[in-house]
């Protein structure tokens, strides 16, 4: 059944994106920050529209796209991130570019791409959604044309991104060759029953897919593009890269590995565990040496990806129960991580608007020039490090606890050690802000009210999740539910023939 109503929220977002671009075409002298507030409003409508899908029966479009609680979860996350990023960009972009409508349009479309990465239940759809997201980001990274570093970052991102897409496609084609299908549930069934001689092809296919998606979430050793792209991109886009872009990658990971590959976990789980270990160690160790704040966050977020990959590995080592628990905890952690990161970037953007300096040493004396921003940065960094009262403490504890099993205790231990290492470089940032006097000539200044309110709101979010994670955790559990119900369908043997079968009326 073709039920177009499931796309309504994205019709709103993408339609508005075109509208915004057209608006600047017809009213070229429109204030650029008005466009940002418009985008914010659209994103809010988009988020509200997606609320209507909560708790409805899973509804799929010919088996390729499914709107269930999991999709709704990522719709809300996308809409929220786009809304915050738009507000963050208002001032930043007005000062730096003559045209801004494409920027906001692409931001909305990138958000739609992220949603369908979560909603896709078919490999080609997943791939196309992923490309929608990354193509928008290629442009957004280099959007401020006056800065050469941005163009360089964009070019590097495009070249390596194209390479990773090829890897991903090659992996998909191998899996298609073995299983004869690109639908997740049919792949799951076919992998469970495949002939014994197909091991090498399956392993190579899985590894290539892992590498391709690993590239998008910047897991080491596929992380090389991230620090440069982060450094060259406009600050709000760096925020977008390190939040929604990663979250969507994990949505794809979860749907794919829980739905399609869970029947063949033995073939990939060790690789994911290894990838997680390498990613977190490399990210955290290299972060120590950074002098630029954006690069520091790039490496620190690579470390964060390592922690999140622990969950994917746990899914492979445990049964569906473990997988469901661990994915719920991962979803909760993602929300905490996204909110903390956005809070951090809101503060950094506000500071950068004033000083134009994004080095770590440039933050010196912030406790005196702008104590509120210093507080926001402190809270978000402490949240990353997993200290109590802030989101990271509870969510990381839940995530690691749910992943703990006899097979994976070493990896969980390594993750905890890594989050200890990360505390060191976060403290070095703190040191600049609180223990040194400000640069001469920089007096106490005021933050624009929009960014102030935004920062305070995100700060409250970080504290709320840190102190009372219960309600959100329950929401995350409901969102993770549908992931593993697909596996049950396959076991019940209800599936026969063509793509029509999976749709539920």
């Amino acid at each position, binding site marked *: 059944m073709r039920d177009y109503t499931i796309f309504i929220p994205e019709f709103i977002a993408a339609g508005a994106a075109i509208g915004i671009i057209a608006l600047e075409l017809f009213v070229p002298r429109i204030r650029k920050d008005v466009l940002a507030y418009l985008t914010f409003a659209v994103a809010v409508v988009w988020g509200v529209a997606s609320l209507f899908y909560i708790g409805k029966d899973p509804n799929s479009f010919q088996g390729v796209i499914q709107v269930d609680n999991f999709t709704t979860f990522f719709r809300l996350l996308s809409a929220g991130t786009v809304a915050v990023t738009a507000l963050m960009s208002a001032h930043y972009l007005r000062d730096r570019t003559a045209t801004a409508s494409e920027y906001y349009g692409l931001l909305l479309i990138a958000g739609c791409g992220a949603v369908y990465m979560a909603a896709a239940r078919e490999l080609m759809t997943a791939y196309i959604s992923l490309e929608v997201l990354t193509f928008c980001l290629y442009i957004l990274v280099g959007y401020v044309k006056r800065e050469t570093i941005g163009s360089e970052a964009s070019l590097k991102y495009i070249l390596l991104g194209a390479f990773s897409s090829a890897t991903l496609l090659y992996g998909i084609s191998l899996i298609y060759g073995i299983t004869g299908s690109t639908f997740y549930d049919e792949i799951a069934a076919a992998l469970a029953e495949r002939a014994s001689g197909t091991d090498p092809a399956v392993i190579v296919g899985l590894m290539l897919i892992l590498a391709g998606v690993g590239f998008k979430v910047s897991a080491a050793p596929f992380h090389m593009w991230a620090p440069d792209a982060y450094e060259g991109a406009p600050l709000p886009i760096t925020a977008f890269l390190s939040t929604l872009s990663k979250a969507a990658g994990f949505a794809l990971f979860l749907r794919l590995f829980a739905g399609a590959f869970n029947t063949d976990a033995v073939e990939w789980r060790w690789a994911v565990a290894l990838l997680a270990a390498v990613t977190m160690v490399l990210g955290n160790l290299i972060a120590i040496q950074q002098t630029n704040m954006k690069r520091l966050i790039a490496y620190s977020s690579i470390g964060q990806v390592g922690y999140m990959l622990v969950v994917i590995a746990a899914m492979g080592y445990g049964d569906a129960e473990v997988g469901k628990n661990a994915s719920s905890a991962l979803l909760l952690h993602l929300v905490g991580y996204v909110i903390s990161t956005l809070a951090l970037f809101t503060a950094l953007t506000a500071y950068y608007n004033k000083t134009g300096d994004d080095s770590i040493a440039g933050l010196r004396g912030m406790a005196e020039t702008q104590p509120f921003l210093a507080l926001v940065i402190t809270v978000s960094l402490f949240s990353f490090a997993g200290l109590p009262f802030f989101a990271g403490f509870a969510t990381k504890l839940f995530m*690691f606890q749910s992943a703990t099993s006899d097979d994976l205790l070493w990896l969980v231990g390594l993750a905890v050690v890594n989050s200890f290492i990360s505390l060191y470089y976060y403290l070095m940032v703190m040191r600049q802000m609180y223990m040194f006097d400000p640069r001469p000539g920089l007096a106490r200044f005021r933050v624009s009210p929009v960014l102030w309110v935004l920062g305070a709101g995100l700060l409250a979010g970080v504290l709320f999740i840190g102190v009372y994670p219960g309600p959100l955790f329950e929401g995350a559990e409901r969102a993770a539910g549908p992931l593993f119900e697909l596996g049950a369908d396959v076991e019940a043997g209800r599936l026969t023939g063509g793509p029509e079968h999976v749709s539920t009326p």
Partner: protein
Amino acid sequence: MTFDEGQGYVVLATLLTPLVAMTLLVFVPGYQKTLVRWISLVAGAVMLGLSTYIFVAYQVESGGDFSPIQMQLRWDWVENTAFLGDNGIQLHLGVDGISATMALLTGVVAFAGTLASIKLDYRTKDFFILFWALVGGCFGTFFALDLFFFFFFYELAVVPLYLLIGIWGSTRKEYGAMKLTLMLVGGSVLIWIGIFAVFHEAGLGTFNLVALWEAGQNGALSPTFQKTFFPFFVIGCGVLAALWPFHTWSPDGHMSAPTAVSMVHAGVLMKLGAFGIIRLGIQLLPEGAEFWMPGLMVLGTIGAVYGSIAALTQRDFKLISGYSSVSHMGYVLMGLATMSAIGITGAVLQMFSHGVMTALVFLMIGAIYDQAHTRDLRDFGGITKVMPMWVVFYTIAGLANVGLPGLSGFTAEFHIFVGTFQTYPLFGGLAILAAAIAAAYMLRLFSMVFFGPTNPRWSSLHDLTPMERMSGALLLGAIVIMGVWWAPFVDRIGDTVELLPRVAS
């Protein structure tokens, strides 16, 4: 188990007072220093009152139904979500004889610390925000009967130290702050791993400590498991308790820390470590404790002897107290390692005794350092003539340190020595040796500073301020009361200790 809701709210109020004070201070403008001081004074006085009430109201055993854990309060936090089962995480507060004593200690030292730092003029507001976070963390750890919240507050107590020492400290403050933070958080990495393992192994789906203690005794946690993970908890907590060879942060940290922070840190925070060994070591993993205690005895004895020898050669007031703290915490660990009722009772007595006496010593050091700006013993001499009151306080604290009968140190060390002689006579002998060396370094300090010709450079020093006298008198009162009338302490602690698993009475 009887629930006394009314008294449970007293415990909650004690925990909330510092946290509320902290939150209030965030919203007070920084230049309103008088208001900041008044809020802190009131909060400190309320805390002292409430914690005294908890100590006094704690019911000692009088035949019939005795339950060591009293004044409980349970609020569901998160349950039946993902891996969390019934009672998954609760804000479960309560006190037993040990934590009632520790709460009193925290109340006394925190109020004394407030009085001592009331004159602080540099970033007063920020100081007290962090100070109350620290105190709140201490109270929370003592009251928590839920592993999640135990660790939550334990971490909360450690983190503010970095900024407290780094901003308001002296003498290599950045080095001392970073070393202290990294070592303490490094210790909590081990605790964190241990918590994951215990939760997974017990398989109860709850962080409730009472339920987990039950699991530790009824075999749900296998002997092999207990022996494997006991070192995680003991070394993790031991870092904070200055367990040799993980004590090296202590002299550096104390040397750098500002007065009130030294007081709370040496007075209360180091006790969190020993308290953690009781809660997570002896109570949670009794079989592991039985197996590893001889090892802890060796390390504790080395610490006791090493600390006092090192103190003998130091020339800085604070380093002497830092090393003497290592030595006294060595006694605490020895007392715990006896696994006998009298030894553990002595250890808890020593935790209290060392807490108040070392707080008094640091208070006095702060009082002279603020005027003299040096802490080198050789610079002083004949101070008795210019600061008689100061000398009286310091002398009494020093003599309590040595273990003079009639002061708290004697009561505590007597119990520990008896316990040690009953179980490990050789180590008992070494402990007495360490006590003798303590007399030597204390008398050396007295002779170099108090007596001899007065250096004219110090003729302008003024004696203690009224605030310092009040603060000192409070601590002195605690020292003397425990020295002459220890029955209330021994009753409360002894009742609880006798019911600890595998403890010989």
